[in-house]
Every structure is written in structure tokens, then in C-alpha cells.
């Protein structure tokens, strides 16, 4: 109880409250603009949060993260343009609503189910993180190494249809993480004598180049598109209570989103796709899915919004980021010397409790904002893509430069911008690169510690019970994935991750 009261005390700080509101509103707006989105915004904002208090910095980024999940529904419904891959299903289901003149109903169904999914996920975060952290207290290096490796394997498995590309991207990220001076013997690795690479590839310029600048280049080089029409007719509050008529779908998809959020490497898109297929199969109105079924919107939005708070569970409890946005946020933790993991609850309880409450209140702030500003945000979604590209490119400079006050960092960002542009154009996934960079030092450090304790004996990973269970689970996962691939090798897989 004292722990939660401590969090409320943090929330009483006007700076935290203001940052939360700014982050949430900004998140909704950028989430509604196709081509902007959470990854671009968080990567640009990342360096500005380094000078903030850790709770303020995290609140701002989480506001963008959660707000964008809500905002992505706006263009999907009102201009039938999914702003991100996670809005594709919402756009598909909302189209018949719009055609029937019930756009407001679709919008309110999306908001309401997003709210339920988001709030349930925050409650899960509050309930599950501490017990998981307590379990993790008994972990040794072998277990942490296996958790990190499991996260990497899940990243690959999660990219169904693009697993070879995801493996290459992940390995590239792991390689990038090794560049610089390594810690065991202080020798240089792949620096080729360049002093500037001694500290390794700086994370922020890499993230901005890969996610923000490459997006800007795509917008700048894209052909002009005809302007879609905003449609918002019907009764706005019609769908707010309607979601509770589909309790099984609503809660089922929310809990599935939470489950997938906890699993590293799965992410919103895969969670949503699986949840949609399952709901369609088991719903009595399954035949209406894809033809304007309220349940279709509920599944899509509740699952999508349940993932971001749940993704914080492994990050806070184990220090393992599950997807690209939490991986970016890990940088904020590390800059402020806040080490996520089991000890975080003992060392910084006020920070964790403050984070819980801000996340919970954030959902309320976002819903209230959406109630008054949906029309205006829909107009923002119509922003000219080329102008957006110019804006992102200009903002990228300040983001990159402010991270270390070095113009050389901008050069690094430019290299990654070209790489990101080419990879996006060929639909190669970018997320595994970032996860590889972030997870590389964790994997290497923990593996060295574990093997060092066992004098290089690899059986350390199967002689400890928790580690052995993880090894067995991973082996089964790999075997089943490989078996599935063999079965389908002549047929193209239906669902593919596209997080580029």
C-alpha cells in the first residue's frame, strides 16, 4: 500500500502530470499521422529526455507510446488509411461502418476497447511485475543469459515469413553492439583504429537514422497521393457501452495482448493478428469479421493497446526489452543510472510506483482528449507527406546533435538512414537490429559471467533447473517453428510481420 501511495505522491508533482499530458497528447496526434508514429517520435525525443528527471523522461516517452496506440485508429476509421501496420485490421473493419454512415460508432468502439485493453494491461503491470521481479531475484547469470537468448529467438520466430531476414537483422544488431572497446581485456573490436568508434556505435544517432530519417527519406521520395476525405458521421457515444456486449471478446483480446506484451519479441502486430484469427474462429458472429463487425474493431484495438504497458513487465522486472520502443526507453533508464531488473523495486520504488500511476491516469487523459479533439486530429492526419518528411528530417538533426553535441553523430545517423531506407524498401524488418544492439551487451555479459562461474563448462545452462527449463522450452519452440516451416515451405505464409 505504501508503495502505491508513494506513486501517487510522484503523480502530485505538476511536472510529472504536465509531461504525462504532453506525451499523451503528442502520442495521439503523431499516432494519427501516417508516416509519423511512435517510433519516429520517440527516437527524436529520446535525447531531450536525457536531461529530464527519469520519471518525467519515461512518462513523456510512454505517453507517446500509449497515445500513438490510440491515435492510430483515427486515420484508420476516418480516412480509411492505416497509419501503422497495427491499424490495418481496424481500417478493414471500420470501412463498412463508415459506408453505413456510422463512423462515430466505429470510432467510439475503437476508443472504448482501447481504453479497456490499456487499463487492464496497466493493472497487469501493477500486479505481475513485482512477483516476476521476486522470482528473478533467484536468477543467476545463466538464467538471465537464457532469458535474453529467449528474447532474441522470439524476435526471430515472431517474424513469420521473414525469419531469415529477421535473423540477419538481429545478427547485424548484435555485431554493431560489439564494435568499440570490449570490457574484459579493454581491446578494440572492429574500430579499425578510429578513436570515435571506441565507445561503440552511439545508440541515439543509430535509432534516429534507422527509424526517423529513413522514414523522412521515404516520405520525401514518395509519389504524391490523392487527399482522402474525412468522414465522421453517426452518434459518437453509441459504441462506448456497446463494447461491453462483447465481454468475452473484449477481455479475451485484452488478456491475449497482455500475454503477448510480456513475451519479448512478439509485439502488437503479431498479437493483434493472432487475436483476430482466434476471435473470428470462436465468435458466434465470426462470419461478420471483415465486413464491419464490432468485435473486429474490439479485438484489433483492445489487443493493440494492451501490449505497450505489458511490454514494460519484462523490462522492469528482468531488464529485458521486448520490442523496439521499450528498447529505446531502456536508453533513458541507463542514462540516469536506473538499472531495470529485480533490484529496481528495492532501489527506486518511487520511480516504479510513479510509473504505474502515470500509465493508469494516461489512459483517462487520452480518452478525454480524444472526446474533444478527434475531428481536429483527423485533419492533422491529412498532413502532406512531403511536408512531414521535411519536418522529420529537420527534427532529426536536433535530436541527433542534442544527444552528444557532436556533428559526427549526425554522420552516423545519415549512414543508418540510408540503410533504413534500403531495408524498408525491401521490407526487411528494422526492429531486430535495434533489439540486437540493445540485447547484445546483456547477452555477452551474462554469458561470460555464467561461463566464468562454471570455468567454461557449457552444461551450466542445463544443470540449473530454471535455466534448463528455458533451454528445453527454447529447443521445443525452435523445433516446432522449424517443423511448421517445413510443412509450409511450398506455400506462402499468410501472415507476415511488417514493422518497417
Amino acid at each position, binding site marked *: 500500500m505504501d508503495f502505491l501511495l508513494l506513486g501517487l505522491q510522484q503523480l502530485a508533482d505538476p511536472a510529472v502530470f504536465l509531461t504525462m499530458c504532453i506525451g499523451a497528447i503528442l502520442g495521439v496526434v503523431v499516432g494519427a499521422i501516417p508516416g509519423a508514429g511512435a517510433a519516429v517520435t520517440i527516437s527524436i525525443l529520446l535525447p531531450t529526455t536525457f536531461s529530464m528527471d527519469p520519471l518525467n523522461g519515461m512518462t513523456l516517452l510512454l505517453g507517446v507510446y500509449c497515445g500513438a496506440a490510440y491515435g492510430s485508429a483515427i486515420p484508420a476509421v476516418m480516412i480509411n488509411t492505416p497509419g501503422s501496420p497495427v491499424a490495418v485490421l481496424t481500417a478493414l473493419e471500420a470501412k463498412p461502418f463508415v459506408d453505413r454512415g456510422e463512423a462515430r460508432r466505429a470510432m467510439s468502439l475503437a476508443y472504448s476497447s482501447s481504453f479497456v485493453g490499456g487499463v487492464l494491461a496497466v493493472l497487469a503491470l501493477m500486479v505481475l511485475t513485482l512477483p516476476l521481479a521476486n522470482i528473478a531475484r533467484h536468477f543467476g547469470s545463466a538464467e538471465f543469459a537464457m532469458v535474453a537468448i529467449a528474447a532474441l529467438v522470439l524476435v526471430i520466430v515472431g517474424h513469420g515469413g521473414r525469419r*531469415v531476414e529477421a535473423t540477419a537483422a538481429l545478427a547485424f544488431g548484435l555485431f554493431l553492439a560489439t564494435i568499440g572497446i570490449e570490457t574484459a*581485456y579493454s581491446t578494440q573490436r572492429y574500430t579499425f583504429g578510429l578513436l570515435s568508434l571506441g565507445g561503440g556505435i552511439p545508440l541515439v544517432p543509430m535509432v534516429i537514422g534507422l527509424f526517423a530519417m529513413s522514414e523522412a527519406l*521515404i516520405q520525401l521520395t514518395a509519389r504524391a497521393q490523392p487527399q482522402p476525405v474525412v468522414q465522421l458521421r453517426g452518434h459518437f457515444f453509441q459504441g462506448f457501452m456497446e463494447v461491453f456486449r462483447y465481454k468475452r471478446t473484449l477481455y479475451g483480446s485484452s488478456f491475449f495482448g497482455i500475454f503477448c506484451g510480456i513475451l519479448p519479441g512478439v509485439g502488437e502486430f503479431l498479437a493483434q493478428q493472432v487475436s483476430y484469427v482466434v476471435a473470428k474462429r470462436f465468435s458466434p458472429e465470426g462470419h461478420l469479421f471483415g465486413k464491419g463487425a464490432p468485435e473486429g474493431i474490439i479485438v484489433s484495438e483492445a489487443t493493440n493497446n494492451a501490449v505497450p504497458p505489458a511490454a514494460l513487465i519484462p523490462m522492469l522486472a528482468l531488464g529485458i526489452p521486448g520490442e523496439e520502443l521499450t528498447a529505446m526507453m531502456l536508453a533513458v533508464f541507463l542514462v540516469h543510472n536506473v538499472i531495470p531488473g529485480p533490484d529496481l523495486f528495492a532501489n527506486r520504488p518511487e520511480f516504479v510506483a510513479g510509473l504505474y500511476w502515470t500509465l493508469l491516469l494516461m489512459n483517462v487523459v487520452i480518452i478525454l482528449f480524444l472526446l474533444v479533439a478527434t475531428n481536429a486530429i483527423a485533419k492533422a492526419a491529412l498532413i502532406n507527406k512531403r511536408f512531414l518528411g*521535411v519536418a522529420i528530417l529537420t527534427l532529426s538533426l536536433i535530436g541527433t546533435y542534442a544527444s552528444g553535441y557532436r556533428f559526427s553523430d549526425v554522420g552516423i545517423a545519415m549512414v543508418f538512414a540510408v540503410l533504413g531506407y534500403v531495408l*524498408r*524498401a525491401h521490407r526487411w524488418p528494422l526492429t531486430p537490429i535495434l533489439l540486437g544492439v540493445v540485447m547484445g551487451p546483456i547477452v555477452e555479459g551474462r554469458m561470460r559471467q555464467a561461463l*566464468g562461474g562454471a570455468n567454461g563448462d557449457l552444461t551450466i545452462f542445463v544443470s540449473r533447473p530454471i535455466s534448463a527449463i528455458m533451454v528445453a522450452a527454447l529447443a521445443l519452440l525452435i523445433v516446432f517453428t522449424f517443423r511448421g516451416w517445413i510443412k509450409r515451405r511450398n506455400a506462402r505464409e499468410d501472415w507476415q510481420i511488417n514493422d518497417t
Partner: protein
Amino acid sequence: MSEEPEIRANRLESLALSILFAAISTGLLALIGVATKANAKGGWWTQPWLMPAIALGILAIANLITLWREVCDLRATPPTTQEKVEGWTALLGWLRPLEFLTYYGLYIYAIQHAGYFPSTLVFILFLLWRVGLTAPRWTLAGLGLSVFMIGVFRIGLGVWMPVPDLYRLFPEAMQTALIRWF
């Protein structure tokens, strides 16, 4: 995260990309003896080359598999003349982002000599003109964006910028204000 880019993957273009990636990854792997050092004292698990070797090994294998798939696909269905032409066009399309990055490089150079605000304003207005947004409302929007950048980052967040040569030409009283705010 984004809309589908304009450039559609052409098989020959993908092949070129796969060759490039496979060559880079195997090249980096081949350099492991030069780019990392072995240490005789420690155990195998502490060797500095171990992690890069694992990462590059996986990378090289994955890239070679991709390359092999591309080659098999092209062998099974040889490219048409049109596809070949499109492939070259697609490869030339890689130069398009480089054009914008050249402007970006010039912008960075200009910041150090002409100052953040003037360079940003010129960069934004030039890019808008370059991408065909030439109507007066876009010029106004560009001006608004420049003022926004100054307001948020220089004045609001106090992001420091090096003192440019241009500002030194102004009287001292103005110099201070220009250096601090613009």
C-alpha cells in the same frame, strides 16, 4: 510503421542487395583476426573475438541463404527484359535518398557557419521547393516550422549550438542574443 514505399522490390534489385549484404558480412567475418585480438590468458568464453564471430557468422549465413534464394528464384524464372530495365531503374532509385542526404550534409555544414536559424529556414524552404511544395502557404508553413524549432529546442530546451561565423559580424549586443536564441 510507414506506408508502403514507392520503390517496389524488383528481383534483380533484391539480388544486388543480397550480393552486397553477403559480401559485406563475409568480408567483416574474414577480418575478424585483424579487427579483434585474441587473449592467451583468459578462457575461450572471454575471448574478445567470440561475440563478433557468432554475430557475423549468423549474419553471413543468413545473407548467403537470402542470396541463394534469390539466385534460385531467378534461375527458375529468368528475368524479362522489362524486369531488367526496371531493375536498373530501381538501383538508380537508391541515389534518390542520397540527394536529400547531400542537402542534409550541406545543412549541417551551414549551421556551423551561418547559424542554426538561418540555415534551418533556408534548408526547410529549399526542401519544400525541391519536393514541389511551392505555394505561398507552404512557404508560410516552412517559416512556421523554423520558428517552432527555435522556440522549442533553442529557447525552450536550451539546446546549445556552436557559435557561427555569421553571427560574429553583428554588433556585440546583438551577437549575444543571436548566439543564445538563434
